[in-house]
């Protein structure tokens, strides 16, 4: 038991200091001397962003616990949810045939993606952050489907959490392809064929009046770690409720041939009482990135809005009786 804790403790120390420490494994270099991050990567994982309540005191899994945990989570995701009536059936019918959340915890064996704060949970909201969140929730409650603007960004085919940034694992297609050329790192995100082209030449950000869904990114290398600073978000992107003043710092370090340690720090004093940091391990994939033509096939939006309009009509008729 003690030895295991020591092993885990050492592992933690090593991983936590990943940004500063020189790894024993040295990544190869691209033609222009950048540490090589190229290839197709997946960040699918069953590890949640925040530490689950029933693991509150447990920062890491012991290696022996992992297999059982993974088995339990995967089985749960595939449980037979069919009910007696068709409506509930359609609503709940999705299982792993449709999802691809992954089957493994992160390689760090942490019980949450969040590494700081130490409790593995997003820090408290500021008063303004709470106000904003409440206003958004109220808006959603009153206007669930007046128009497309009321629906989520994924349903509108505008932005997926896999793109972010930060680039969070999601329901499926957690795939990325990284390309490097002199002075640039480009990350092609499968959903929704977003490409983050990150210049490395130290140029200034876009002017503050220019706002973008994926913000505006600038990168530089610190040793073998690519550090990317992103600003200029819109006030509609709202990562976990963030404001347009979000300042995001991401760090990419290739720790072995099949792993990139992806770490991000969220800094948004208008929303959270302190910055918070999460880590996801990205695993080399031997697959390809597919075209995700979301908007071109967006029958869902039409169905939802037409359905909402039909429901309104029905309840108006019912009320008129």
């Amino acid at each position: 038991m003690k030895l295991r804790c020591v092993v885990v403790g050492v592992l933690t120390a090593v991983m936590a200091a990943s940004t500063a420490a020189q790894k024993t494994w040295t990544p190869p270099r691209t033609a222009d001397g950048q540490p090589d991050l190229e290839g197709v990567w997946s960040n699918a994982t069953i590890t949640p962003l925040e530490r689950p309540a029933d693991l509150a005191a447990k920062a890491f899994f012991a290696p022996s616990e992992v297999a059982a945990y993974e088995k339990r989570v995967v089985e749960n995701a595939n449980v037979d949810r069919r009910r007696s009536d068709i409506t509930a059936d359609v609503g709940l019918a999705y299982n792993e045939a449709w999802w691809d959340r992954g089957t493994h915890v992160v390689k760090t064996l942490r019980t949450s993606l969040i590494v700081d704060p130490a409790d593995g949970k997003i820090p408290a909201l500021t008063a303004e952050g709470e106000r904003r969140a409440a206003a958004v929730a109220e808006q959603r409650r009153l206007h669930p489907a007046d128009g497309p603007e009321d629906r989520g960004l994924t349903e509108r085919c505008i932005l997926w959490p896999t793109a972010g940034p930060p680039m969070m694992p999601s329901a499926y297609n957690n795939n990325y392809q990284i390309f490097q050329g002199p002075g640039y790192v480009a990350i092609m995100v499968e959903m929704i064929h977003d490409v983050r082209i990150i210049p490395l030449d130290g140029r200034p950000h876009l002017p503050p009046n220019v706002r973008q869904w994926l913000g505006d990114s600038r990168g530089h290398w610190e040793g073998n770690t690519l550090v990317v600073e992103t600003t200029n978000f819109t006030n509609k992107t709202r990562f976990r409720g963030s404001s347009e003043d979000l300042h995001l710092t991401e760090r990419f370090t290739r720790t072995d041939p099949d792993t990139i340690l992806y770490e991000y720090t969220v800094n948004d004093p208008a929303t959270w009482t302190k910055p918070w940091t999460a880590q996801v391990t990205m695993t080399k994939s031997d697959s390809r990135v597919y075209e995700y033509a979301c908007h071109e096939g967006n029958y869902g939006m039409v169905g939802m809005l037409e359905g909402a309009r039909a429901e309104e009509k029905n309840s108006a008729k019912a009320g008129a009786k």
Partner: protein
Amino acid sequence: MLSLVALPAAAQATISRGPRTADGKPNLNGIWQVLTEANWDLQGHAAAAGPMVPLGAIGAMPPGQGVVEGEEIPYKPEALATKKANFANRLKLDPEVKCYLPGVPRATYMPFPFQIVQTPQFILISYEYANAARTIYMKDPGPAPVDSWMGQSVGHWEGDTLVVDVTGFNDQSWFDRAGDYHTDALHVVERYTLHGADTLMYEATIEDKNVFTKPWKISMPVYRRLEKNVQLMEFKCVEFVEELMYGQYRKKPANP
């Protein structure tokens, strides 16, 4: 100076791409076009929906990093209010909608090519858009005899830079589709400098004491159109706005 020896026909027909003209000046002859989004909005701007829903993405405003040095146009406060009102009402007010002459410097950064025909005494710039045109006088003819949309252009060389002083504007044109405007006090000074054989660096300093608190400057590269046999084509858009402007006067079919 002029040769009285008849040159062979081939020599007369060769389009010169040499760096200098026969009179020793930088050779600006050719067909040029900018690649910026300045015509939508001189200032940096994110992409945005357009004013016409049926046009969808075709009518949307593309993003631009901006071409204004210092990023912001120095409007007087009351003039800024006018610019905003212009923008809110741009479908009705932007002279480009009606195929009116674009003025200077907007003619330069319309998303269409223009051709420079350079002679020692005059430099002609012919714009594909609305066949707008202007003649740059290399010898100052005196004050403009009358105000006009394209102004009166007087040019001189400062080293290898063509400096063009434009005055005599009326107050009718806009600088872009975002409502940036001027009065008849407008004064523009342009600078054209070759940057390698196929690029022009273009700058324009704009002043109008009725609208801006101080002069301000835009700059952008202009690229040579290199396609084989490239030429300006006609974009006579007056015909395309007749329904918009005169459709209300169309005779209605008789009702039985």
